[in-house]
């Protein structure tokens, strides 16, 4: 089953165009939606999760028209929004059970089992009787995923799930997601490149409401081979380099500034070649310096 998004556009009442003619085909497995803050990731996620209308375009899950059959979509959907709260005075077990009922799991034995099992999987079983108000960010996030997993969803949407988690929590979370992502569609939006490179078989890079690139991370990295160059510079030289070269990123390393430059050939002697990683792909894409970036390929070629 695939999720096919076609010509999706959305402009907010305040004039911000959140989505510009978005076309995506998302196959089974983990799909990473990578983009900076405010790129339109959450808008896209909410639209897929039936919480927001689009001005035009369509979303189909298999035979299902998401816009017209919201109820059907919700039956197979697991959604973990970017930000959510919980009732602080309710225990995880109670609230999960409550959600289970609302997800249509009416057989109480089944419900009990699935709640217990989800709490086990998300490592919350020990604290299941505790009120959610006392949960840490990571625990709450895992509760969120447990909630999203209720009722055998066919598609799971997780919006920036690892923001604010410590590394251990993040690892734990990634493990969980990758396990889930084997048989169903999992869409993960993030601005952390590593999340995608660690987890996702497919990805799309989105900025300012536009899909800039889609494809497999490895393939994308492969394509960048030999085109990324690195140089240590002084802080003051940055502006000059930006004017002369296609600087895709700059960061500090041991007190010095390292810049990465995108070029077909070595731009100068002081530049040294770098083995590109997904981050370079990402920065190159969103800074718009790539001319042969994957987004220009017809989407049908995206591996499904």
């Amino acid at each position, binding site marked *: 089953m695939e999720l096919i998004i076609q010509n999706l556009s959305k402009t907010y*009442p305040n004039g911000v165009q959140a989505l510009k003619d978005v076309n995506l085909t998302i196959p089974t497995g983990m799909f990473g939606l990578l983009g900076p803050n405010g790129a339109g990731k959450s808008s896209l996620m*909410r639209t897929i*999760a*039936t*919480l*927001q*209308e689009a001005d035009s375009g369509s979303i189909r899950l298999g035979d299902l028209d998401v816009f017209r059959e919201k*109820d059907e979509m*919700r*039956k197979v*959907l697991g*959604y973990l*929004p970017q*930000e*959510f*709260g*919980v*009732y602080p005075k309710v225990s995880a077990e109670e609230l999960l059970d*409550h*959600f289970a*009922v*609302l*997800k*249509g*799991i*009416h*057989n109480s034995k*089944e*419900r009990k*089992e*699935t709640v217990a*099992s*989800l709490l086990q*999987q998300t*490592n919350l079983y*020990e*604290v299941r009787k*505790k009120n959610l*108000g*006392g*949960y*840490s960010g990571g*625990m709450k996030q895992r509760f*969120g995923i447990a*909630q999203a*997993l209720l*009722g*055998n969803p066919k598609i799971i949407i997780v919006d920036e799930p690892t923001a604010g988690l*410590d*590394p*251990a929590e993040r*690892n*734990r979370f990634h*493990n*969980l997601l990758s*396990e*889930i992502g084997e048989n169903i569609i999992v869409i993960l939006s993030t601005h952390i490149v590593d999340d995608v490179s660690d987890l996702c078989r497919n990805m799309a890079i989105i900025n300012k409401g536009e899909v800039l690139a889609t494809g497999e991370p490895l393939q994308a990295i492969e394509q960048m081979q030999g085109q990324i160059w690195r140089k240590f510079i002084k802080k003051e030289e940055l502006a000059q380099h930006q004017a002369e070269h296609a600087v895709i990123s700059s960061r500090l390393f041991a007190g010095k500034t390292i810049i990465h430059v995108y070029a077909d050939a070595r731009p100068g002697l002081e530049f040294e070649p770098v083995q590109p990683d997904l981050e370079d792909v990402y920065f190159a894409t969103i800074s718009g310096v790539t001319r042969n970036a994957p987004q220009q390929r017809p989407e049908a070629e995206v591996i499904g």
Partner: protein
Amino acid sequence: MFLNIFLFELKYRLKRPATYIYFFLFFLMALLCVFGVSGVFGGTVIIGGGSSVSVKANSPYQINWVITILSWFGVLVTSAMMGNPVYRDFEHKTHSLFFTTPISKWSYLGGRFWGSFLVTLLVFSGIAFGYIFASAVAPLFPSVEATRFGPFNVMSYVQPFLLIVIPNLLLTGAIFFTLGTLTRNMLAVYIGSVLVLVLYGVSSALTNDLDNDLLANLVDPFGASAVYQTTRYWTAAEQNTLVLPLSQQILWNRLLWDGLAVLLLIICFWRFSFSFFASEGKVRKLRREEAPGIIATAQRISLPKVSQEFSFGRSFGQFWKLTKLEFKGIVRSVYFIAIVVAGIIFLLSTASQIGKIYDTNTYPVTSEVVAILGGTFALFMLIIITFYSGELVWRERDARMNQLYDALPIPNWVPFTSKLVALMGIQVVLMAVVLVCGIIIQAAKGYFNFELGLYVKALFGLQLVDYLLMCALAMLVQVLVNNKYLGHFIMVVYYLANIFKGQLGFEHLLYSYSSDPGAPYSAMNGYGHFVGPFLLFKVYWGAFAIILALVSNLLWVRGTEARLKGRFKLAALQLNRSTLVVLGGAATVFIICGGFIFYNTNVLNEYRDADDNERLQATFEKTYKKYQHLQQPRVVDVYLETDLYPKEREFHFKGYYWLKNKTNVAIDSVHIMLDDNAVIKQLEFARPAKTVLFDKTMGYHIFRLAQPLAPGDSVKLNMDLLYQTKGFKQRSYNTGIVYNGTFINSQLLPHIGYQEALELADDDTRKENGLKPKERMAKVNDLKARQNTYISNDADWINFETVVSTVPDQIALAPGYLQKEWTKNGRRYFHYKMDSPILNFYSFLSADYEVKKDKWNDVAIEVYYQKGHEYNLDRMIKGVKKSLDYYTANFSPYQHRQVRILEFPGYSAFAQAFPNTIPFSESIGFIADVDDKDPEDIDYPFYVTAHEVAHQWWAHQVIGGDVQGSTLMSETMSQYSALMVMKKEYGPERMKKFLKYEMNNYLLGRAGERKKELPLALVENQQYIHYRKGSVVMYALADYIGEDKLNAALKEYVQKVAFQQAPYTNSVEFLSYIRKATPDSLQYLVDDMFENITLYENKATEASAVKQKDGSYKVSLTVDAKKFRADSLGNESPAPLNDYVDVAVITRKKIAGIWQDFPLYLQKQRIKAGQNKIEVIVKEKPERAGVDPLNKLIDRNPNDNTKEVTVKS
């Protein structure tokens, strides 16, 4: 730093649209008030106690009330604006940013508080600006008279702000700010406003008892009682000119509550701590349970396969589960509990006021308890509906769980419906709370006749329905506006608009949401015929509520689309078949019920709103006034076969009048007026006559006799009239003929000649309808007017005979003596005949009565009462006996052989005296709970009985002409007679409280006079004068000239005028008898009391005593005395004073186990204007001293008449 934060707060607030919305709403409300008061909407609305037409729309008094009242409603705005300044930082999670900056507590809290305070004050100034603007604009409307407005005076606006608005704002601001800051919860803030309102309510409940003035003033956080107590006796002239003064009451109230405000702010400052609030303490413990580090790669996720079901039945299960969850969520919230507890405290505190008349309790019968508690609790119900509708609609969003919920596979109808049903469930619980409170109150008062069935009917059958309908509306508003606070505000505006909708011209119930024609309860008649129309209206509105709920559901915010436009688009997509079916069904029921209601109110019965009625009256006057002074024959004999059909609510008069030409000219045409509801089967003379005019709408008919009626000749008028009840009317309760407890009177029978009483009376209304202003009554000496009694203008004294029939289980009654009783064809007949002439004024009653009989000499006493209302029968019978004792001894013999008291349903609260017949409302005496041991309790069943029995003399023997002052000889004299009987029975001490009420009601009454106040001798049927002032004046007169002397004069007068023929007596004649009995030295009393409006301003300024060697005390007293004469508008001018006034020295003694005032010295002395020094020697240690301690003279500050004596040894 303070300044920075202060200015930031100002800027922040001034950028918020809410600030301007609130300002504009205040502006608008003030505008509407002024428009209402000045008559832009036609007619005039009265806002604030005691305002009257002669008071200008921009008089300081009127401005003060509008500003004060609107500022109370502004509490809601205050809570939103002042509860929020610090709370906001927590809500937006900016607190950690602010609290870590180097600002001082004072700068932060002070800046936020005063910034918000200033902006809130600006918002409130909208009232003043709205008022000023409206005062400038209103005179431009054609319906507004220019005289409604006086000159602009800025102090009229400033003073209420200084004394009321700003202090209240400081108090409520301090409460809300402190609550918001310390609890960080907006609901806590609302609870604060509820508590403030509770205190206000308790205070107004206390105001009912005159002895509670001080307490009522201090308990009231808004100072309303203080304003009331300061201005209650202001006359129109004073209201027009006086700016609210800083009176004692206002001063003390303001000091107390603003002191509290300052205290609260100090507590807030002291308790507030940046670090305390910034930390979030609980989380740490859990975090430790998981160690960081290497995490075992998760085992394969293997979730048990589950089955999901999405049938309707399953959705219903989800709905039910959510409903329970929401319900529990509310019930368990501390705030709900707090509101309910506050409500219960309020209920229990008002319980002491149940059914109080003259400060004397009634038995806590279930219907009273339900009425009072239901009414009292209504405020809390509305608060709960208003606030919790917002909480429910916003619950998920407030918890930031909306995205989780919205993406769940639950049908759209489930979330909204579950919330609505949960809110409705809360109403059921609250009604149960009222029920339990009611039973507790009854039991606590030792009353155990809990009528559970009645409780259930009243609370769950009647009141609950309204609340359920209100829930639907509140939820719709919340969903529509999608802003919790704006939603609250709109609901409050809605409640207010509801109060004023009549004035705005929305009279028909069909377009007034949740309305019904009312369902008053009577112990005699139950809910009677009101049930059907009530239910029909509720089904009608219920169907409408379902439509509202469906619309709300369609517009329910699911997902992130919150704009109304977008939601309407989504709603259109959701219109599936089942929604349409329900919508169509509800709309069908709505239309059918509406149609049926319309059929009843507008087709079966003619629908007239207030304007229609006024127009009709005006047309009547314009068309027929020309016939007013035509010579007409007079009714001399009445025979009626009166058939009452209580179940069908029909009655039937068949019989005749004998009309006699008492003039000295022949009369060729007879003009007959008849209620337009009567179906005329026959109305014709027993001799040839032609119908010249038959005007059914006006009820005006003219017959020309073939042969004119010669002077002294009589003619028989045969009649056969039917009054039917067809369906139901809009509002006319039609409580005359009911299932049990029919009470109809001679008004429904034909009248001869033009009836001036049907003309429009109010000058404003007359003007609107193109009529000139008219005097209320003819001048006291108008001989033409004195040809009629003030009771009827078509008869003098008549012979009366009637056969009344009713259903077999009821007894039918009418004036006269029972001749015969029989049953025929399943109907019970009673034949009554009066053996002496009576006024043309009679009534018919029928009910399933119990009868208690007694005797006074040869006079039979009978009380016809509702089973269960036995409580005060003995008091009434005693009242009859003592009255007969006193009146026969002092006035004249009793003209009948019988006194009957007949209970009728409490739809009206009065007793009325017909010849030998006294209909007596069930609500004013039958359930009184008089405590004989309490000197403060007034035995009003006894008093009312004595008053009505006195009318057998003062009205039914002595009747004044149709001129000014005539009610002096009926109502005032009946009051006087009853007072004397009461004094004789209970002693003068017990009269004090009663007279205090009479005085208060007189002073309040004159403040609310709509046209002009008149001296007692010229009273124009003004109740506050002939009852209230009359009591005070006559009691004092009896005291000054002696009861016996006064009675002797009265006896002489009665002998002269009893049963006289025209011209009828007037107050001038009456006063001549009084003057004759009054010594020269006291003649001024008659001038002062009867012929002028006289007020005293007596005050004891100093009182001290020195103990003498012989153990006695020499009391030195300084008294400041003033006497005024007032004109009809209340303009006062000083009058010379050299009057006899009681000088008293009082101590407290325990008499019969109760501490009471005991006079050591009580003598009349001459008092002159200004300072009087008086010395008195008394035997015992004095407590208080002063003048006029029993308030015999009319004085607006009776409490300062005496002063505590400082004893120097």
